[in-house]
């Protein structure tokens, strides 16, 4: 992680390209987020954990660890060859410390550091029932979560008398223990592991504790701490610290002026740091130095905020009150299970540190205030309800030099400067300062700083409405507004535009206003919805009939072929398992639909901000691996949600087994079959900014699955911004996917009955828009090329033939292929 950050920092600053960078990596995967490792067992893929951004200017050598440093020749040797260097940066991290306990070589004893470790644990845990984690610190609780997610009965053994002894105090540890035990994780505190016992076949059988307890276990994970990986440096005779780690000065330079060390392998003035934030700070220092800067390591902020086993835990500053004469202010609420402690200076004026367990919402403000005056009355800051007020009063009082984002060392002054330079929203601040781009815990503060600086973040849709889409939706729904004219007269100004009119059209359609081109609604529709087809760059349209789940009979396939042939349409298979027919002129559309509708087709809504397709793999009907009928479910879902208008297009897919051939995790809602039901993933996206969907619910029976999707879609339709896909909607949601789950699974807002009823109305009122058009001559009359020459085609639309099919004539974008490739025409 730190190595990756160093490379990014160097590449970002080295605009002249003065450094060529080679990365020698021991692991076969590019850098990934070790902090969230247990998420790997909670549905996150290796790609999602990846921190790597491809960079052509970096020679990344995976699975090629450095073996020897030859300082005289300035060469690093690997198994594959030699790499000369002008500067060498050691970012070798650390290795897990395994206490010298008898039997630790038994099969089934693992360390917890890499994705490969997790793979090994998972493989071994296949038939296991019980797991023991040795170590109750941060890493140990992460590992316990991993075992729990694998379905194992989990024990945690900690030598200290409390969990997370480095970060929290005794009372905080007790609160944490209550949370952890409630999740079914058993804790054994103040106990050492004295032996690991193995069966005759070499597999682990259990562990013995110092108090004599015998814990049977099929899996043992050792998470008892880390040690700096400084072997290379030792071999190269670089000085190391008393407790390991390559000795570096405050510029992160080793005793060799051309060799630097960053992250867990470095000992700055003899101290190693096992947290990512100090490592990132070191990476920035070295990047700066290599480009001639004079940066120094500012000393580490050891504050941490984590979500461990679903519990928020934070500690900052002098959490243990070690400062002479310091005072504690403690807040304990057994009802809400919140523990908070502030450590104050002897005059109770200066905040020195603190511990938060159960609710860490006050963390960003408090951490930034360490060393300065208390940003408000202590109780107001600590009580959960006071977090908001505390943050508000605290921010203004915060000194400019206080770090708002400790991951990236961004101060309040930096952020206010960026706002003064024109950053007017959180994404701009992130891009400009990097604040909020790592752990994200300071994002609420960024928002507050924007308002402190007087930036009102406009939610106006456009000049005609000072409302967000969600507000307009509520106005239309609650007041029963049925026309744009009524809405713009009563709640807006002017006569609308290409932004607000389609939004209002979509809202009216979502609320069931019938045929989308009736009356005034017609004038609101974008050209695609107006002509029920997709406009192309030459002004012709493409036609996509619905093929639910991608399943089609030979007879229907032949009809599509005949229509394409008879109307001279370019034909292409889409990514959504359907067929797109291009080059139709406006006046041809009704005749094309007539042929398709007569053969049993209907509109595929490829033109609408609406459900597009539900893709599927072939499923258990044919596939020897399939465990459920993915095609059947995909067809049912596509028919249920067809025609549903939304803030943006909706895509879905169903896979019949975990091999995921339908690519469901790239969809707004994706379903993957399990042995006993369906896993539902939400918020996936392909396109411009790819994002894998998050696991939302597991092993659902079909009825529950459908109800959950109903609510997900309806809640999205009601609350998302204009053109906001589900991925961005969830990311922007306060509380994220947990909040979403609370709303549509636990009904925390009492909305579910309403959402269910809205979806039932949609399903009951669905009608095919193509057929509805054909059934009414007045509606068909709109589909003319020229009002004074209805049968004359646009003379400017002409085609030429490419690869046997019609394409727009002239002005095509050249492919730029070398002629030797012999592209066949």
């Amino acid at each position, binding site marked *: 992680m730190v190595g990756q950050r160093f490379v990014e920092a160097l590449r970002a600053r080295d605009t002249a390209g003065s450094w060529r960078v080679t990365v020698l990596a021991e692991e076969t995967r590019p850098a990934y987020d070790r902090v969230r490792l247990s998420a790997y067992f909670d549905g996150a893929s290796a790609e999602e954990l990846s921190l790597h951004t491809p960079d052509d200017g970096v020679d990344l050598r995976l699975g090629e660890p450095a073996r020897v440093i030859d300082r005289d020749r300035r060469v690093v040797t690997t198994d594959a060859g030699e790499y000369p260097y002008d500067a060498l940066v050691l970012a070798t991290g650390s290795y897990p410390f395994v206490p010298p306990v008898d039997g630790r070589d038994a099969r089934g004893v693992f360390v917890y550091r890499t994705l490969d470790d997790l793979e090994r644990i998972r493989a071994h845990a296949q038939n296991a029932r019980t797991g023991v984690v040795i170590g109750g610190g941060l890493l140990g609780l992460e590992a316990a979560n991993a075992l729990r997610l694998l379905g194992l009965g989990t024990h945690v053994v900690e030598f200290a008398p409390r969990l997370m002894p480095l970060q929290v105090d005794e009372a905080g540890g007790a609160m944490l223990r209550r949370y952890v035990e409630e999740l079914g994780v058993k804790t054994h505190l103040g106990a050492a592991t004295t032996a690991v016992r193995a069966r005759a076949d070499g597999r682990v059988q259990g562990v013995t504790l110092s108090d004599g307890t015998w814990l049977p276990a099929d899996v043992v994970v050792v998470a008892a701490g880390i040690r700096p990986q400084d072997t290379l440096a030792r071999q190269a005779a670089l000085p190391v610290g008393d407790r390991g780690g390559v000795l570096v000065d405050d510029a992160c330079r080793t005793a060799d002026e051309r060799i630097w060390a960053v992250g867990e392998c470095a000992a700055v003035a003899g101290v190693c740091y096992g947290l990512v934030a100090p490592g990132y700070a070191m990476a920035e220092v070295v990047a700066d130095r290599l480009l001639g800067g004079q940066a120094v390591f500012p000393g580490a902020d050891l504050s941490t905020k984590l979500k461990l086993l679903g519990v928020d835990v934070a500690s900052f500053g002098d959490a243990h009150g070690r400062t002479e004469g310091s005072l504690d202010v403690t807040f304990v609420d057994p009802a809400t299970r919140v523990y908070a402690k502030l450590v104050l200076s002897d005059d109770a004026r200066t905040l020195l540190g603190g511990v938060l367990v159960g609710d860490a919402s006050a963390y960003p403000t408090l951490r930034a205030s360490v060393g300065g005056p208390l940003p408000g009355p202590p109780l107001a800051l600590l009580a959960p309800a006071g977090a908001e007020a505390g943050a508000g009063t605290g921010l203004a009082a915060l000194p400019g030099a206080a770090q708002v984002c400790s991951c990236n060392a961004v101060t309040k002054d930096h952020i206010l400067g960026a706002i003064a330079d024109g950053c007017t929203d959180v994404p701009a601040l992130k891009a400009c300062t990097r604040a909020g781009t790592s752990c994200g815990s300071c994002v609420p503060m960024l928002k507050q700083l924007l308002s402190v600086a007087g930036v009102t973040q406009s939610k106006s849709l456009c*000049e*005609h409405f000072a409302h967000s889409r969600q507000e307009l939706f509520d106005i239309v729904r609650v007041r029963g507004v049925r026309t744009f*004219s009524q809405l713009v007269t009563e709640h807006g100004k*002017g*006569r*609308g*535009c*290409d932004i*607000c*009119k*389609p939004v209002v059209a979509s809202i009216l359609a979502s609320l069931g206003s019938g045929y989308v081109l009736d009356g*005034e609604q*017609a*004038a*609101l*529709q*974008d*050209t695609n919805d*107006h*002509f029920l087809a997709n*406009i192309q*760059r*030459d*002004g012709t349209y493409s036609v996509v009939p619905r093929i639910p789940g991608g399943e089609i009979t030979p007879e229907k396939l032949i009809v599509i072929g005949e229509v394409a042939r008879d109307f001279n349409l370019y034909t292409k298979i889409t990514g959504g398992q359907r067929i797109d027919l291009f080059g139709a002129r406006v006046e041809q559309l009704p005749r094309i639909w007539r042929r398709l509708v007569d053969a049993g087709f209907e509109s595929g809504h490829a033109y609408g901000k609406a459900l597009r397709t539900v893709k599927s793999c072939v499923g258990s009907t044919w596939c020897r691996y399939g465990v459920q009928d993915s095609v059947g479910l995909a067809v049912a879902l596509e028919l249920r949600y067809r025609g549903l208008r939304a803030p943006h297009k909706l895509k879905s897919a169903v896979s019949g087994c975990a091999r995921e051939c339908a690519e469901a995790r790239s969809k707004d809602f994706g379903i993957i079959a399990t042995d006993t039901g369906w896993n539902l993933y939400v918020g996936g996206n392909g396109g411009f900014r790819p994002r894998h969907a998050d696991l939302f619910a597991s092993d659902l029976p079909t009825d529950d699955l459908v109800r959950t999707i109903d609510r997900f879609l309806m809640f999205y339709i009601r609350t998302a911004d204009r053109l906001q896909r589900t991925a961005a909607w969830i990311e922007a949601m306060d509380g994220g996917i947990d909040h979403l789950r609370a709303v549509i699974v636990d009904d925390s807002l009492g909305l579910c009955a309403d959402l269910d009823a809205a979806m039932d109305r949609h399903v009951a009122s669905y009608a095919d828009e193509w057929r509805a058009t054909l059934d009414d001559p007045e509606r068909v009359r709109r589909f*003319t*090329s*020229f*009002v*004074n*020459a209805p049968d*004359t085609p*646009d*003379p*400017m*639309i002409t085609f030429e033939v490419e690869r046997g099919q019609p394409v727009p004539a002239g*002005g095509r974008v050249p492919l730029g292929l070398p002629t030797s490739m012999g592209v066949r025409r």
Partner: protein
Amino acid sequence: MTVDVIALRWTAVCAYDRLEPERGVAALIGGAQVAIFRTHDGELFAIDNTDPIAGANVMSRGIVGTRGDAPTVASPLHKQVYDLRSGDCLDVPGVAVGTHPVRCRDGAVEIGSATDRP
């Protein structure tokens, strides 16, 4: 000061009622394609049907609305907004569509085109 006197020939294209409020139609006038719009207050505007940026004949299919006081249409391809009165593109400086005289006479929409003889 010179005054160009341009004589117009008026061509009827359709009944006024054929135009939907805040929507356009295309018409063929000689060889030229003209987009005709009826705004919310009943006024008529006519501009070239060719999108000057994309080159396709699509302007009649754009969304009609207002920007400030200006009646507008947005190109359906890439949404640049044009002032229906002047033809000026309000999003891209220096770009404009041609405008055409248009009127309603005896319930018919007529487009005026320049002619050599009055």
